[in-house]
């Protein structure tokens, strides 16, 4: 393991947090000055995360870059940061997406722009905190503090129904997380420590496990979101400003998946096995039913929001399939390893693709002031380059081979086939359904005749709108062609995770 002599994780978290807090109070008349500060802070954070990646050792599963200081002596709560393979990937996703959002914001004019950018930076810092925290209370603090910036982003800069959407979002997620707090406290009481890895070795009875499992499931299930607790997501997406939707879909939902991997899998495997007959159908409902719901949408943002729920269904399917292999032969465990890695792959790829799609919709909305599919037609004739990019994201969204969207779904499907062929058949309907809603959206918006003045007068794509999209396209193709770039990072952690679960059984 390489040793950096600087507290790089603290640096990573506090750079955007402090940058954001400072920016929050700089009420500068000059908008470009504010944008420049935002850009430099987010780029600096991105560089720190890349530095982290360079120094990250992928050949072992132990925690790296550990920082541990006593924080609350009374309760033995520590300021304990570290990362493993899973964290590394999500950190990169967060820093990349935030940088892209800040660049995308260059083109937008709005009231109180300093606060807008500041809140995104604060949100970035808190998200990074969630992925780095290995003390459960510290994790919880970042997890819940995350609500505040997004609550304000949607509430202040959102659409007409923003108050409803943002309060719904806040209360939904708060409800989930408080139950998790009780579970965390119970675990810490049993383990006599707040260190997350100490929870892994706890031996709990099945009844206890089920309660803890449910508490975590509600917390992370709402965040992911799983059917039937997904209803806050479309509302939040529709009312959020474009960049808010981007970070919501691309990173915030992933916190749910990350939490499931970090807590549900290793702490309560028996409960997972016991409840799997309910959990896997829930994921399948998310995949199939929500895809149908997506087809019926008239609002572009809602459509992509529902498609997010469906895609996250794949993530939870891959995670829950791991439970099914508990106590079985070695070769089947390799399958669940593939499923787990597929879930992570799916999360990253969905992060990139949905970010791209929401940026595209934001670009259309900024020109036509409408998100309704019926109001647009023939965008392709007015903005050919933009349409090509958007079509690319739509195809990736439907799982086109060669893009990252394909890899994750494919891996989860392999795991499903080995588990139960019926799961696999049901899950694979998404290949048709996702193609249906994605391509149909493309057909209605991008192709066809130009039949309204607003579309005809759309301005050309600006450079600061093109760059974010191009970066995302490159990443999607890169990961699609060489998925091992991503998979290698979490390989050891994932193998270790399967081992922990099996040993526990």
């Amino acid at each position, binding site marked *: 393991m390489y040793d950096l002599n600087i507290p790089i994780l603290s640096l990573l978290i506090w750079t955007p947090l402090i940058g954001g807090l400072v920016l929050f*109070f700089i009420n500068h008349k000059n908008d470009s000055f504010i944008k420049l500060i935002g850009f430099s802070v987010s780029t600096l954070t991105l560089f720190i995360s890349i530095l982290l990646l360079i120094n990250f050792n992928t050949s072992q599963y132990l925690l790296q870059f550990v920082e541990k200081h006593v924080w609350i002596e009374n309760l033995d709560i520590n300021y304990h940061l570290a990362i493993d393979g899973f964290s590394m990937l999500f950190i990169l996703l967060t820093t990349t997406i935030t940088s892209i959002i800040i660049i995308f914001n260059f083109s937008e004019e709005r009231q109180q722009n300093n606060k807008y950018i500041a809140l995104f930076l604060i949100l970035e810092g808190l998200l990074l905190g969630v992925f780095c925290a290995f003390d459960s209370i510290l994790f919880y603090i970042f997890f819940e*503090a995350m609500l505040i910036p997004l609550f304000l982003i949607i509430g202040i800069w959102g659409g007409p129904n923003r108050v409803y959407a943002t309060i719904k979002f806040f209360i939904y997620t708060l409800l989930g997380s408080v139950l998790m707090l*009780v579970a965390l*406290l119970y675990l810490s*009481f049993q383990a006599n420590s707040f260190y997350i890895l100490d929870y892994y070795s706890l031996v709990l009875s099945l009844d206890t496990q089920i309660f803890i499992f449910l508490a975590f499931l509600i917390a992370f299930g709402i965040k992911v979101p799983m059917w039937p607790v997904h209803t806050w997501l479309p509302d939040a997406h529709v009312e959020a400003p474009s960049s808010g939707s981007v970070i919501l879909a691309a990173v915030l939902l992933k916190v749910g998946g990350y939490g499931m991997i970090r807590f549900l899998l290793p702490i309560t495997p028996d409960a997972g096995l016991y409840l799997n007959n309910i959990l896997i159908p829930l994921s399948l409902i998310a995949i199939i039913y929500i895809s149908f719901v997506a087809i019926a949408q008239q609002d572009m943002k809602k459509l992509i929001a529902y498609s997010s729920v469906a895609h996250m269904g794949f993530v939870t399917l891959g995670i829950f399939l791991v439970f099914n292999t508990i106590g079985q032969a070695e070769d089947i465990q390799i399958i669940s390893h593939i499923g787990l890695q597929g879930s992570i792959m799916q999360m990253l790829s969905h992060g990139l693709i949905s970010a791209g799609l929401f940026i595209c919709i934001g670009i259309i909305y900024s020109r036509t002031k409408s998100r309704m599919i019926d109001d647009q037609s023939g965008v392709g004739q007015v903005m050919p380059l933009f349409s090509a990019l958007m079509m690319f994201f739509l195809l990736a969204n439907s799982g086109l081979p060669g893009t990252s969207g394909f890899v994750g779904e494919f891996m989860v499907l392999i795991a499903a086939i080995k588990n139960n062929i019926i799961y696999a058949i049901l899950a694979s309907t998404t290949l048709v359904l996702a193609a249906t809603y994605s391509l149909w959206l493309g057909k209605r918006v991008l192709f066809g005749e130009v039949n309204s003045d607003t579309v005809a007068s759309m301005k050309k794509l600006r450079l600061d709108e093109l760059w974010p999209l191009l970066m995302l396209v490159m990443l999607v193709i890169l990961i699609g062609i060489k998925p091992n770039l991503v998979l290698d990072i979490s390989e050891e952690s994932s193998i270790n995770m399967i081992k922990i679960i099996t040993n526990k059984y």
Partner: protein
Amino acid sequence: MINYLYIFPEIIITSALCFIIVLDLFLPSRLKYISYYLIQFSLIFCAYYIYSHFSYLNTNVSQLYDTSIFSNTFKIFILLSLAIIFYYTAVFLRYFNIYQTEYFLITMFGLLGMMIMISSQNLILLYLGIELLSLSLYSVIAFNKNSLFSSEAAVKYYILGAISSGFLLFGISLIYGLTGSLSFNEIFIHISSLEVLNNMDNVQIIGLLFALIFILISLSFKFGAAPFHMWIPDVYHGSVITTTLLLSTIPKIAVFVILIKLLASVFSGLLLFWTDMTIVLSVLSILIGNIIAISQTNIKRMLAYSTIANIGFILLGLSVGSIIGYKAAMFYTLTYVITTIAAFGLLSQLVYEKKPIENINDLSGLNSSSPFTAFLLMIILLSYIGIPPFIGFHAKLLIIQSLVETNNISLGIFAVLMTVIGSFYYLRVIKVIYFDESKNDLSTTSKLHLTGIYIMGLVLLGLLPDILGQLSQYSISNLFNT
């Protein structure tokens, strides 16, 4: 031989009072500020005296008057809180031209009452302290004599307060009849000698339980726990906002000290019974407080119900019946007081259409007219909800942790779910501040620098909760060692 040094803090306050009352009569109105500064000085000096004589005062072994570290911590806290409250009061009263030095002096009598309450080791002394506090509060509530609401609130509080005093006296006389003593220590010894667990149907124990119930009812009334909370919304609503600030903060500390002394040490033999009682009180308070607060439009009434809910949380910590719960309850009380001073203090400095803030909607669009104030208010509200990293989160965390560690998990789940319900009405205020249209009629009575510094301190306390944690640990363990 009586050693007067032990009660020197009380002597300071009393003599300052007597001196300033007379002095103020002779001061021309442009020099009235002198008496204000003298009052502030006497508070700070008294707090400093206690702080500098901490270990000396702790050597007091009197059976009547307790000056242990535990009591003195709370006294210092009350004195400093009162200094801050007086600052807000002075600013507010001057702005609205109802400034009178008597307001502060009457409150000082209440302070004396609280100090006696905190230190009392004898039921009669306790009763005297409570009455001194209550009487000064009645007159402070009625202070704004032009307002019908104020008079109504004062009369209401007076009548209900008299009933609750009656309950207290009845409980005290029962105890005297059964144990033959009024001293905390002797009552404690007497109850311990009964061996409650082995003689459940002993007549004496039933009698003591009656007495305990009467005393607990009276104290819950002062504390504001449901179902004895009826006066809180009306009185909070009727008083001027700085009086509400006073009412909702330091008297709660004094009552908390008495509750913890009576329940956790004097009546510790009856622990089995009073834990159930406090659970009922706390569950009702949290339910009623959080649910009724949702429908309030007046911000003082809303915060009144939020007080009831917070009191419920404090009682929930007490109901654990072990040191970890008391520590959590103390942490919660201190946090609640610090946050509430910030909340009412900030609100008292806001003016809407030349009148003090009354309704939640008066605040709409505060963010566009003064973003800094809006930000401060948001921090306070988020802390009330219990969103990390603010101090309110740590307080709730400790309460829930103490419940989980004593296997009261269902109560813990109840508490967190009620937190979610409670979050709604705080969020509505944030919504009004940040998301609604500005009315542009909002201004402030004075510069908010001090409030800003105070609230930044609150944030800092949230990042370093160990400060309050160690304090609670230190004082609670002191209570049980001596």
